[in-house]
Structure formats: structure tokens, C-alpha cells
């Protein structure tokens, strides 16, 4: 099967590599910036496109990977569905739940497979936490805390810095944790959120959520794009008989360069695994495309995650909880 990558930034390049690792051919790379498309295409001798629609419609393409800024996801999902291609779309599924609903309807109508990359479900440590909870090791779970983030992503001109496009740390980054909490503990009941969403004098965002689930579990979730450097994930789940904890800064490998190309040095923790979570989500997606299995995450799940993130931002604005 042949793959087209739409949006050749950080994630586009990563997914090209994952697809190739799965034995697929990357045949088209499209990016609004021609140079980005060309450099992503080069290692695969793929065709570079400046206009994504050309890549999507290309006859030899079977799977379209959408890794453009979030507000453009829907447009390319609709085009890919119309062209009869299977779709791998990065999270957040869309910039609004309405966009997600239209995308789901289009994929259904065209009878194509639409997968959304909620990759945290495939992270080894998150699988291990879920397995511990489900094995009863902590008794009945009553509270979970998740913490994710670090430095504000993207350069000064990046779409990440436009809250209207990215939705800030709550919509772009915490959405991973919102999805995972629902994956493990079921549907949410209500959500309360405080978000900084600052532009000046320095752009930074910090989001603090309290969420009550239908099964009464309480979740506390913190997302940060307010740190001067680094990236860190922490998880803690407490129950009637114990607790389970994870901290990414406590890693098997860590390096600290004396000098770095971009400013101050920092400790970079690394946790190597034989098969990366991104690879695993590709295998899951392909199992579905090839009719061998159903995927761990559905477009419906991704829509729910967007609805939760939307509710969080609504709550932050109203300074009151929002029912889900």
C-alpha cells in the first residue's frame, strides 16, 4: 500500500518513517511550504506536492496521513474520504467537535477507514499503568493525576502560538490525557478548567483540570507549556489498596550536552523501546485497514476527546464547571 503525507512538519516526518517501517511505500509528501515537502519526500524518493489536494487525489495513494495544523484536518479528511482513501489523522481530530462529526460522516459515506492518532494509548508506561489498575493491584481506583508538558512548542511564527489554531496546551496537549482517562475510567460527568492562555509579555500556557467521571473517579490533570525547557510526563493513580506512579524524568538514559545549538543545556531523559508507540499505533491502524482487527482507538473516541477539551476551555472562560 502507498502512503501520502499531508503536512511535513515534525509529525509528518515521523509518520512517514513509521509507515515505511511497516513496509508501506511513501509515494507523496505535501506541504504548503515547498521546501518542507521536498525534504520529507527525498529519503523515500516520493513525489513532493505543494498542493495537498494533488497528493490526496493521486491514483497510486491508498492511505492519506494528515499531519497539518489542527484547523486544517477536516478539509483534508473530507478530501481524502471523497477520493476513497483510508485516513490516518493526527490528534486533535479537529479544531471543533462539529468538524469531527462531519469528518466521521464523510468517512462513513465513503466507506473508508478513519483513524486518529491518540498515541498515548500505545505508550508502554501508560499500558503498564492501565494493566496494574485492571489487575487490581491498587484495589478500586478513586483518583488519578496526570501531568504533561514542558516548553511552549514551535518557533515564534508557529501555528502553535495562535490559540485560535492550536487551542493552547489544553486542546493540543492535555487532550492526550483527557482521552486516556476516558479510555481507562469511562465517560466523564463534568469538567472544571483553569487555563492561562497568555500572549504577553511571554507566551505561556498552563492548564489545570478537575474532572469527575460517571463512575465517581476524580481526575486531576495538569498541562504545561509554561516551562523554560524540557518535557515531562507524570502519572499517579490511587485506589483502595495502593497506588501506581510514573515519572518520565526518572529515565534509564539521560544526556546533558555541554553545549547545544539552541541556547542553554538541559537534561534530556530517554527511554528506549524496541517498538515505538507510534509504530504500534501504525500496526494497529494497518490491522484495521487490512481487515485483521479493530483498532484500540476509534474516530468516535477522538471526537469525545475533542468534546472534553472544548468543554474544558468553555469552563476556563466561564470559571464554572461544564457538564459533559
Amino acid at each position, binding site marked *: 500500500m502507498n502512503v501520502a503525507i499531508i503536512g511535513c512538519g515534525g509529525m509528518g516526518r515521523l509518520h512517514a518513517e513509521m509507515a515505511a517501517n511497516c513496509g508501506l511505500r511513501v509515494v507523496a509528501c505535501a506541504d504548503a511550504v515547498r521546501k518542507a515537502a521536498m525534504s520529507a519526500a527525498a529519503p523515500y524518493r516520493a513525489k513532493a506536492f505543494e498542493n495537498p489536494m494533488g497528493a490526496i487525489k493521486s491514483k497510486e495513494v491508498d492511505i492519506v496521513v494528515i499531519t497539518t495544523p489542527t484547523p486544517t484536518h477536516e478539509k483534508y479528511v473530507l478530501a481524502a474520504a471523497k477520493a476513497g482513501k483510508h485516513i490516518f489523522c493526527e490528534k486533535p481530530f479537529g479544531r471543533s467537535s462539529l468538524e469531527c462529526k462531519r469528518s466521521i460522516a464523510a468517512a462513513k459515506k465513503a466507506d473508508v477507514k478513519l483513524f486518529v492518532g491518540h498515541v498515548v494509548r500505545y505508550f508502554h508506561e501508560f499500558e503498564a499503568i492501565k494493566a496494574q489498575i485492571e489487575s487490581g493491584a491498587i*484495589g478500586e481506583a*478513586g483518583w488519578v493525576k496526570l501531568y504533561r508538558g514542558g516548553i511552549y512548542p514551535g518557533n515564534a511564527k508557529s501555528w502553535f502560538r495562535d490559540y485560535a489554531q492550536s487551542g493552547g496546551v489544553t486542546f493540543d496537549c492535555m487532550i492526550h490525557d483527557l482521552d486516556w482517562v476516558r479510555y481507562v475510567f469511562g465517560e466523564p460527568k*463534568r469538567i472544571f478548567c483553569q487555563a492561562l492562555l497568555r500572549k504577553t509579555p511571554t507566551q505561556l500556557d498552563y492548564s*489545570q483540570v478537575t474532572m469527575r467521571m460517571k463512575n*465517581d473517579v476524580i481526575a486531576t490533570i495538569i498541562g504545561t507549556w509554561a516551562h523554560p525547557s524540557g518535557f515531562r510526563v507524570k502519572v499517579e493513580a490511587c485506589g483502595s*489498596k*495502593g497506588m501506581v506512579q510514573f515519572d518520565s524524568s526518572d529515565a534509564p538514559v539521560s544526556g546533558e550536552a555541554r553545549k547545544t545549538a539552541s541556547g542553554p543545556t538541559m537534561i534530556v531523559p530517554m527511554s528506549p523501546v524496541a517498538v515505538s508507540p507510534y509504530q504500534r499505533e501504525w500496526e494497529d491502524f494497518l490491522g484495521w485497514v487490512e481487515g485483521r482487527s479493530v483498532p484500540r482507538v476509534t474516530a468516535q473516541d477522538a471526537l469525545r476527546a475533542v468534546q472534553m477539551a472544548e468543554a474544558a476551555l468553555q469552563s476556563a472562560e466561564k*470559571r464554572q464547571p461544564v457538564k459533559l
Partner: protein
Amino acid sequence: MTKIGIMSFAHMHAHSYAECLNRLPGVELVAIWDDDAKRGRKMAKEFGAPFVKDRDKFLARELDGVIITAENVKHRALVEAAAAAGLWILCEKPLATTVKDAKAMVKACKKAKIGLGTAFPCRYSLPLMTAKDMLDSGAYGEVYSVACTNHGQSPGGWFADEALSGGGATMDHTVHGVDLLRWMLGKEFTQVYCELGNQFHKETMKTDDLGSMNMEMEGGIQVSHIASWSRPQSFPTWGDVTMEFICENGVLNVDAFNQKVIVYNDKTKHAGWAAWGDNPDLGLILDFVSAVRDKRDPVISGIDGLRATEVTAAAYKSSKTKKAVKV
């Protein structure tokens, strides 16, 4: 010699306060009263002070001040009695379980012209004092957001009996974080949202054992705080006080009790933490004793206790109304 008495050893902090009194020069622990006579006699023996069974006789002794470490709901009656006897008072936190009680206690002490202090020893924790100094230096600039935790193991006993404690972990562990932030940032709390419940101990108690709060302070500072008894029995230590400050010029993290060595002991079959940091209680007791001598209010006053109780009350109200409520 400053003469101090202790009223009730129901709260385990009384042990540390008694030790501090015995360590400090110029102070004497002169008598112990307890409505549990058995406990009172035992403590009297342990700390080398006479036990006085009758409360009025205790208050009539030659005393300058008392430390009240009874069950939460008993604080008010004891404070009022000690104030009427003209004694300086240091009251365990939470000062009271209701705003009404806290106000009455502050009023009674004012009327009696005696000093009332609330036991918030965290203000004397060196890691937390250092963090305050760093914020005060201005190097970090304006504070925008704070994420706090005050976790603990379940203390059980009367703490888990609402009739005596007034509430669970949210009652027990909200006030430290609240008082620390009022002190560090010099601002008051304005709004509280709280989800709370009995999340871990349904089989052994009825009160809440976790509260997850989102609060606002003057100037729009966003604060999350977790008050919990979520640490399992196998956890290596009693709990924590942590704070992450998101500021204009950087991020500041404090883990107040993270001065420890890790101990692996085959007898206990799990790892434990042995703390080596300075005991913050000593600063608290030293200030109280000086306040008694100088006839002034302790640095952490009854008003501070009242303000913290107002926030806790708002948290419980929010959990009932399922709305963010004004403080």
C-alpha cells in the same frame, strides 16, 4: 520561665509540640489536660508534666499560655474557656470546622485581650521559606498559576468521624496549602471549585478522603490544590506538601519534605523514607512562646486560621452545589 500547658493529645501533632517545649530554653511544659484521662496520664508520664483531670482546675493553674490539640470540633469550647482564663492560645489547625466557630473564637480572644495563634508550621519549613524568599526577590516575576498538593496517609480514628473532625481530608489538608499561599503571595482567595469524595476508604470510613480544588486568588492567580489521604499504607512516607509556581520569569518547585534518605529494611518489607530536614514545629512553638512573653499575637494569628477555614467551607459548599463559589 514561660509556663505552657497542653490541652488534649487527640491530635498527634501535640507530641511534637511537647517535645519542642521541652527542648526550648526558658519554657516549661507545666501541665497537661485531656478529656481522655488514660491518654492524658500516659502523655504526662512521657513528657514529664503533671496531668490535671479537671479542666477548670487546669486553667486555674499558674499558666501563661496553652496549646490546644483536641479534636477539631472541640477547638471552639476550649479556646473560649482558655481565653476567659486570660491565657495565650496556640490552636491546632484547622482553627475551626465552621466559619461561625472560627469568627466566634477570634472575637472571644479579642475581647479577652489575649493572643490567638493557628498552628500552621509549614510557614517555618526551610524549603518553603526559601521558596518564599525566591519569589520575594522578584527574580521570578509575577506569579500566574500554582499547583499544590498536600497528600497524606489516612490518619483514621476521630479524623474519619465527621462528628469530631467536621470533615475528612479536605477539612484536614486544605488549610496548609491555603495558608502557605496567602503568606507567600500576600493575597486572599476569592473563588473555590472542589470535587471531593470518599475515593479510597469506603469500607472503613464515611468522610471524604480526597478533595481536588481549583481556586482563584486576588489578581486572578489560578491555583489547583489536592487535599488527600490517598497515600497507601505501603507508601514510603506519611505524605507531602508540594507546590509548583508558574511565574513570568520561570518555574519554581518545592517539595517541602523531600529531605530524606531512602531506607530498605527487610523487616518492614518495603522502602521507607527517613527525614533529616529541620523540624518546622520548632519555629512555630518558638514564636508562640515569644508571643506569650511579649504579650502579642502569634505571627500566624487567629485571623489566618479564620481565612483558611473560610476557604475550606467554600470547598465543601462547592462540592455540594457543584459550582465554583465565592469565598
